């Protein structure tokens, strides 16, 4: 039994607890707030900047230090530093405020960057800047979900942004080569999927250059492969149809 006397008490403030269950026992370490994520990402290399104390606890808030036997039984070593490192790497923790904030901020930026990369202003065929997208996202009060991938969320954002600003996915430019036999039939099927047909050439085979929404690519690809039994082909001419070069406004 440990004796609580005011003199030998060490009080820790700003504690972020990292827990891990191993060998049926719960182990905890006391860390500084906002530091564990940096350690995990490798930005923080100094262990002393992360750990408040190098002792391993059963319960940090009660101040119960883990027994040596338990430690060596669970971890196979009694080197506290090694154990701390393992707990830091694998244990579960409550993400601190700044960590969460920076996480959300990064993914917010990331989403905006993806949207800006994928989309254009349909009037000018030029991309929007990331800043503008970010502002538009704030305007529609988009909140980032931490558990969804940024790419998924970006597609979601594009859909929502369409209500407030002129925006659309940058079209892909494809070249389709279809054998003459299936050409006509297939063209009817493809028609709803193509946005703009730029050129059409019907000699011994049908050749089309067209702009499509990138979302339809799979579908078109499938259609051509199945319907023509491999004779037709499809080629991506450019992934993004955007204006190139600077333009002087006059």
């Amino acid at each position, binding site marked *: 039994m440990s004796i609580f006397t005011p003199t030998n008490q060490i*009080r820790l*403030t*700003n504690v972020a607890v990292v827990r891990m269950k191993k060998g049926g026992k719960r182990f905890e370490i006391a860390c*500084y*707030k*906002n*530091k564990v*994520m*940096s350690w995990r*990402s*490798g*930005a923080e290399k100094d262990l002393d*900047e992360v750990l*408040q104390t190098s002792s391993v606890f059963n319960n940090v808030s009660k101040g119960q230090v883990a027994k040596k036997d338990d430690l060596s039984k669970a971890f196979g070593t009694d080197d506290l530093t090694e154990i701390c490192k393992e707990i830091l790497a694998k244990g579960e923790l409550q993400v601190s405020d*700044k*960590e969460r904030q*920076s996480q959300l*901020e*990064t993914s*917010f*930026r*990331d*989403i*905006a*960057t993806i949207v*800006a990369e994928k989309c*254009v*202003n349909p009037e000018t065929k*030029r*991309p*929007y*800047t*990331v*800043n*503008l*997208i970010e*502002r*538009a996202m704030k*305007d529609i009060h988009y909140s980032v979900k931490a558990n969804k991938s940024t790419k998924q969320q970006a597609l979601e954002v594009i859909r929502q942004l369409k209500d*407030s*600003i*002129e925006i659309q996915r940058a079209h892909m430019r494809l070249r389709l080569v279809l054998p003459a036999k299936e050409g006509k039939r297939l063209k009817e099927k493809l028609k709803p999927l193509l946005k703009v047909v730029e050129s059409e050439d019907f000699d011994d085979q049908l050749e089309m250059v067209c702009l499509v929404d990138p979302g339809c690519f799979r579908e078109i*690809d499938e259609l051509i*492969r199945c319907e023509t*039994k*491999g004779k037709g*082909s*499809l*080629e*991506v001419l*450019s992934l993004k149809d*955007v*204006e*190139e*070069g*600077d*333009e*002087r*406004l*006059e």
Partner: protein
Amino acid sequence: MGHTSLDKIKALQKNPANVRNLCILAHVDHGKTTLADSLVASNGIISSRLAGKLRYLDSREDEQIRGITMKSSAISLHYASGEKDYLINLIDSPGHVDFSSEVSTAVRLCDGAIVIVDAVEGVCPQTQAVLRQAWLENIRPVLVINKIDRLIMELKLTSQEAYTHLQKILEQVNAVTGSLFTSKVLEDRAVKEERAEEDKEEGDIEPAECPGLEQVYDWSAGLEDSDDSQLYFSPDQGNVVFASAIDGWGFSIQQFAQIHSQRMGIRAEVLLKTLWGDFYLNAKAKKIMKGAHAKGKKPLFVQLVLDNIWSLYDAVVTRRDKEKIEKMMMSLGVKVMTRDSRHSDPKVLLSAICSQWLPVSQAVLFMVCDKLPSPLDMTSERIERLMSVGARRFHSLPLQTQELKTAFMQCSSDDTAPVIVFVSKMFMVDAKALPQNKQRPLTQEEMAQRRELARQRHTERLAAIQQTESGEGNGQSGSTTPATTPGGDNTIGKVSQEEEEKETFVAFARVYSGVVRRGQKVFVMGPKYDPAQGLRMVRIVSACLPPVPHLACCTMDSLYLLMGRELEELEEVPSGNVLGIGGLEECVLKSATLSTSPALPPFIPLNFEATPIVRVAIEPKHPSEMPKLVRGMRLLNQADPCAEVLIQETGEHVLVTAGEVHLQRCLDDLRERFAKIEISASKPIIPFRETVIRPPKVDMVNEDLGKQQKVAVIHQVKESDTLHLDPSGLVTLTTPNRQATVGVRAIPLPEEVTLLLEGSADLIRTLEQAGQAQREGRTLDMSTWTLDALMVLKSRLEVLLQGRKWRNAVDRIWAFGPRRYGPNILLNSVEGYQRPSVWHCLEREKGEKEGGAKAEASAIRDFDNSVVSGFQLATLSGPMCEEPLMGVCFSVERWDMNFPTQRTHLDSVTEEDSNSLDASVSESPGEAAGHPEASGKAGGAVDCYGPFSGQLIAAVKEACRHAFQAKPQRLMAAMYTCEIMATAEVLGRVYGVLGKREGRVLQEEMKEGTEMFIIKAVLPVAESFGFADEIRKRTSGLASPQLVFSHWEVISSDPSWVPTTEEEYLHFGVKADSANQALKYMNGVRRRKGLYVEEKIVEHGEKQRTLSKNK
């Protein structure tokens, strides 16, 4: 001094001999607008009491608030000198450097200029600049030395000291003129040496004044020979006025000569010659003697002129001696209202006395009318200069064009004379200020009445609105019945449109010949219009709208007399006058030449002292207002002679302005007038490139690294079962389904190759198109020129890529990237795998290898394309901060395919190909051995664009990225070349600013004939934000940089570098976060893009705010 009526001005306009077009030029805050105020007050437009305080010509709100002029504005004044009535078209110009473009627009329209110099500050940078501008435009300047009261009141100089001070200022001004003259003479001499003998007369400046110039051959002799005495400012020539515009007085020495000649009985001519200079009055002998300075006597100027003024100031302001003032007023014959003399502020009394005794407007206007040329006296040299665009010389212009010169010279207002008008800028006017809409109260009343009626009758309401829209003749249109006008039913829409169109453009122009009438049709010459071509075409078509390039036709809807803030409508404007033209906004962008004769060439473009260099990116606060912003920026571009707007490839809207103050004004204009939305300006996005270099030989503290491959070790990526990295930098990656393995190595390209590839991007693009077409079995016709150029490119690449490593490299080039024409190369080094190189189409054109081409074509692109796509993706965004790569060669050294069920379509590649693949497959025996080479053409083709190709693309991309990271990677920064003109005394500060911003000086040389230095330096674009402004501030405006994008440069520091050796720790500390410029840039970009930045969220765990209470 009553208000001059419009009719009077109209009458005066008809006599060009008595018209003076002039502008006021000076450094900022030397009193241009104040002087203009006094001149305006002399015409009774504003009260003379308010002159100097009102700043009548600063009509913008921000001009009034900031106290600086930001635009040039014109006003027509009437001046009666003796018998003659003069019309003076005065243009006030801004003095701030940022608005020097406005000065250019003003100077072009004038024949003369009033240059103002502050008596205390003397010649300032902008004074030099405006003198140069006046000189370049060939207009004659007169000098006003302003703010002499400051010498008395602030500096407390004695009259004697003031005299020497004024002399010095005059010398300074003349020195500037002199140096301009010298450089002109030197330039002419250089030109003359080049040109043939017959053009000799072209070189002289003003034939009447510089007759000696023709004989200039030896430069020293040339300077002595050419007579420049007429150029200089000298009071005895009558082209200098001493003034204090704020106190309302000013004089030229003629006035004093006249006064004193009566009093002293000395002839006025003698006095005139001796009043300025080293002369003194011998009181006993009543004679004027020379050598005042040597004998310690008071010069005549001090004794007769300055002393009087000094004593007046002394009496009125300093001592407030009532009696003495009375006496002085008596002797001067001045009567002052009791209200003024009782005023507690002595300045009021002072200006009341002075403005009657020596009114500044009289002195200045007299000098102007006397000394400055009328439109009739335009020198032929100036005309020739105006008409010879570019390097073309006047004599080479068509004959008809040359004939127009006489029209210029005569400046006649006959109906037969061709109309020649030059528009120097477009400015926006509130439609309310237009004279058509002047009778506002009446019109509104009518409108109200009509609206009353319109409630009952729908059509009438429509018509009423229509009428306000088509502004003309609104006042009289009350009687017209509006029933006839057609219209839709969306009245609200129309009303809102009307509100939007409240502002209209008015052209700031001058008539050089002929009479301009309202509604007249004229040609608009674009800057590239060629009269020779135009004449030919017009003769054929002879219609009003000929399809001649750069020639348009337009109607001048309305003509205005510019009266500062107000405009007066005119029916016609005769030659030699400044005017405003409405209705040109469709066909005139910023400036233009208008004429009824197609033979007229466009005038030479305006000569801008400051080029726009301050770049900002502009965005609307609300993204949905983008179209409004674009429209506003277009309008701004039209209205501002110096601003540039452009949309960059990144989608940024960039505004380029001449300086911070100019930027501020442009932003205000956008917000309040043009776009009418909230906008925000920010630092523009700075592009970077990523590249690899050869492993460095020395480390950061110049220690020899030896042979160790330290860098490769640092970037050792954690190896997985699919990824393998060998120490020489070869990365092997297997696709997730284990069907393909690629081995890629990144090699830095030599710098010259990168440059070459970058320069020939267009060529490579055509090559790529041709290759693509061929693969499809089509042919794309290339001109022989393109083919030749491609051959040259290939051979140059062969020359540049020498050495063991690059053997046959050029023939093995697989693709270029990113986007198929960038400065990166994909190299085919797969042993035994032969594919047609990118030069393939060239060879085919030459007739080689024709048979196999087609058979190969369909097959190769099966998977080949995936590899290329992977490469394109990898080069488009690098691993450091997702910026494009540059100057990297990816050499594919291994490419194995094996399929668990069937070896497919690769067999369909020509025979050698399948052989080669057999060989490569057998290299990885474990996987390939078990599978017989079952051929299945059809099966393969199906798979060709399926998920596997996607996996291959991803694999190639990843392999390229890893290969890139295995090499020492570097960032490349865009660099500006920067040319700075600076005087010797500020050179040190220029170097300081350059050094602080990572700039590097390339060379420095002195400009011949002047004391300016020209410094050439390179500066990273990333550091250029605010550079121009800083350099201007630090050198008090004496140095002005010009920035032009020049090239990409590798930043030598490694962004991922951390100190490792003992020496490095010593030198940089453990963290080394101060030294690494590249890391700073990289993290900046990563943060902007939302990529992971390796940074701690909090630096010190212990130094955070304690949340729980400390017990």
